[in-house]
């Protein structure tokens, strides 16, 4: 039972890390521009495709990873420069629709490239050996990719935290998110801050996309949609626009999903005699193993509850400073 619990906690931390890595990218951009960038998920997809092509060309993970991150950051910066900068300050709906358009262009562009390269729409992901298989610690069996996801999350989010608290550019980013006109009066170069937010978000999405593809084992041009939706929920639960909130929301979401999956069928898992039979049958009736397939529904119910009780999210501020 203890082993089972630890195993599930590790699963939750691993899933939470990926959600958090995605959610901070959404939160940084939203914080400054009020733009919900749904094309953020497609950056994950781009990263996965760069990974397929570079690993397929025989590169090692160590050689491919910088290429994956760099390529995705370039796409992220282009996205900002070409699509979002010209409509900065436009109504929120116009920016939201633009992000859907950007997503469509990236998905169909990728589809076109794979067709030209003579590949099918669904490609098996060539997971590198270093991330395949499991690690046995005592009686625990942990997939290597889960361990990698957890450490990627902790290390990268730790670095991000240092960046936004210690560097002038990081402070400028937080200032711009809190009060954009006042940030401009300080002489903060808003274009540079926005580009930095996109670049960092894309870099984190690249790592998340790579690990997500390893877990999924296959990729397609539409793979970014579910993760970006989950990341969006994570950011909203944590408090949209807040970086710390996005991280918290990511891990809350990870734990929530694993909790639902872990509790499903718990009655069958309990060894005979460990609990009274009435308890066992109660659990079997109310937490059947089929509940696992209701995971997303439970997550959305929690989202609705959070929005009802605390519309600004766990760490969110109620509203923006009055405009200057």
């Amino acid at each position, binding site marked *: 039972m203890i082993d089972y619990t630890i195993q599930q906690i590790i699963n939750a931390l691993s899933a939470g890390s990926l959600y958090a890595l995605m959610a901070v990218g959404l939160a940084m951009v939203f914080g400054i521009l009020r733009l919900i960038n749904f094309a953020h998920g497609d950056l994950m997809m781009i990263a996965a495709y760069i990974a397929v092509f570079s690993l397929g060309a025989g590169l090692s993970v160590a050689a491919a990873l910088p290429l994956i991150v760099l390529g995705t950051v370039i796409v992220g910066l282009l996205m900002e420069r070409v699509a979002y900068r010209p409509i900065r300050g436009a109504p929120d709906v116009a920016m939201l629709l633009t992000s859907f358009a950007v997503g469509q262009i990236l998905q169909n562009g990728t589809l076109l490239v794979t067709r030209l390269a003579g590949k099918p729409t669904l490609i098996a992901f060539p997971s590198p050996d270093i991330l395949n298989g499991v690690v046995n610690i005592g009686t625990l069996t942990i997939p290597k990719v889960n361990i990698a996801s957890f450490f990627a999350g902790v290390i990268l989010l730790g670095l991000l935290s240092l960046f936004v608290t210690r560097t*002038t550019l990081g*402070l*400028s980013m*937080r*200032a711009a998110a*809190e*009060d954009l*006109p*006042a*940030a*401009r*009066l*300080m*002489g*903060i*170069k*808003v274009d540079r801050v926005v580009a930095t937010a996109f670049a960092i978000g894309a870099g984190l999405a690249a790592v998340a996309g790579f690990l997500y593809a390893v877990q999924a084992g296959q990729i397609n041009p539409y793979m970014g949609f579910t993760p970006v939706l989950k990341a969006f929920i994570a950011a909203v639960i944590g408090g949209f626009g807040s970086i710390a909130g996005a991280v918290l929301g990511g891990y809350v979401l990870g734990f929530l999903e694993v909790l639902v999956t872990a509790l499903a069928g718990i009655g069958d898992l309990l060894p005979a005699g460990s609990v009274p039979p009435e308890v066992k049958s109660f659990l079997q009736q109310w937490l059947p193993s089929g509940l696992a397939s209701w995971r997303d529904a439970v997550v959305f119910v929690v989202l609705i509850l959070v929005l009802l009780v605390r519309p600004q999210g766990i760490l969110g*501020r109620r509203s923006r*400073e*009055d405009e*200057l």
Partner: protein
Amino acid sequence: MLELADIHVRYGNIRALQGVSLRVDAGQLVALIGSNGAGKSTTLRTISGLLRPTQGTITFEGTDITSAAADRIVAMGISHCPEGRHIFGSLTVAENLRLGAVSRSDAPGIAADLAMVLDLFPILKERTGQAGGTLSGGEQQMLAIARALMSRPRLLLLDEPSLGLAPLMVERIFATIAALKAQGLTILLVEQNVHQALGVADRAYVVETGRVTLEGEADVLRQDPKVEQSYLGIGGVAL
């Protein structure tokens, strides 16, 4: 030093400024007075590049800055301390001050100016690690002025620095403004406290519905019957 010539600004269909012309000479303190919505804050926001005029030119030390970006205007030596203070509430006092100097790269100069503003407002020294949002209104105003000074401006735009402050704090803020002027800083001051503003200013402009309707030496304007009636009220109490 600063010259606005026939500046027009629109907010959508609203014509906020309809031909404002004014001049601030080096070393002077010039006050903009007028009722709410007259266009005083809009004038400052236009100078600092947050708003774009549809017509007219702004010249700073001989350079046309009418269409310069806000960050360039700060780098050129104009600092704007906005109405409502606009402190970054989730950042510490030290971080707020650090961002005030974001346009500069001379580390020793920044350190010297930090010591200077902390000398000017010793209370901020005790609050450096505290989040800006936790300060009192008066402390936030001091932080806003200190932050604006961190860019080492040659021209300071001060918008309603006494708004919403207790009388004792108002006195302190005006004493600080006088001290900054005595150090040779050029200041363009927007104030609803007309009595105090004219007391400290060299020259003043009266702004009404987006136009300058009266201008002159502060001492002369204080005696002007129209100013007395509209803005000073009976017994010199500010509106």
